[in-house]
């Protein structure tokens, strides 16, 4: 179903930080972060498919960080990192919330959930990316991480 946490992906090499970004919880800023991330991935030679998968993943995770993590409190910050490990484009998105266990979310493709209005965001992100992780941070807050391995253009 999702590739997350399955076989090790071939990009555990040196980490190159591209951009780090810290913003308030303002939905108007989500598009800027998405544009910044997708421009970066385009510059790094990823394909249009990779760009659009990450556009979706960054958008969904940003929206969740603001709505669920920071509960729409404008003063609560979101910290975003884009970095490369070999052919993997990584995104970390940190909010000030208490986190969640992605393995406990209902399967939106189960027949009883198929017509639900909600509950497809993280499922889709996991399917469009590799190495999806949610980690509580030592001080406070939560970090959601995912990466996209360079694909061949279809």
């Amino acid at each position, binding site marked *: 179903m999702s590739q997350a946490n399955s076989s090790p992906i071939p990009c555990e090499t040196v980490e190159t930080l591209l951009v780090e970004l810290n913003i308030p919880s303002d939905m108007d800023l989500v598009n800027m972060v998405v544009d910044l991330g997708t421009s970066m991935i385009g510059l790094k030679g990823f394909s249009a498919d990779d760009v659009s998968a990450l556009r979706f993943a960054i958008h969904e995770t940003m929206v969740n960080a603001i709505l669920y993590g920071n509960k729409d409190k404008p003063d609560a910050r979101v910290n975003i990192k884009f970095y490369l490990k070999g052919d993997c484009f990584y995104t970390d998105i940190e909010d000030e919330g208490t986190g969640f266990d992605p393995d406990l979310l209902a399967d939106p493709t189960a027949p009883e959930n198929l017509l639900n209005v909600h509950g497809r965001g993280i499922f889709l992100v996991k*399917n469009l990316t590799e190495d999806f992780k949610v980690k509580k941070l030592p001080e406070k807050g939560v970090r959601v991480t995912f990466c996209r391995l360079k694909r061949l253009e279809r």
Partner: protein
Amino acid sequence: MRVKSRERDGVTILDLSGDITIGQGDVELRKEISELIFNEKKKIILNLRKVDFIDSSGIGEIVRSLTTIQKNGGILKLLHLEAKVRDLFTITRLITVFETFENEKDAVDSFN
């Protein structure tokens, strides 16, 4: 998001364009569907050709459109799912609950 509503052979076609995302698009779509139901329209097509980006809230809103229309005795079909949108519907298996078309005439004719 922008919505343009038109009729063809007794079928209502909503041409959606732009982004359908949380807070912009989902609400407009819900209003548009309520209006169609209020006006007793039963045969409805969502034309997604000009949709640039859809997020999980936008997808959820299209599912809500389907169930609302069905509850009111109508039928909803989808037209022109461009590759990226189709992928999202495939991964979520929503492709199995929607009737989808790549050609507008076929979509309209399928109601009759």
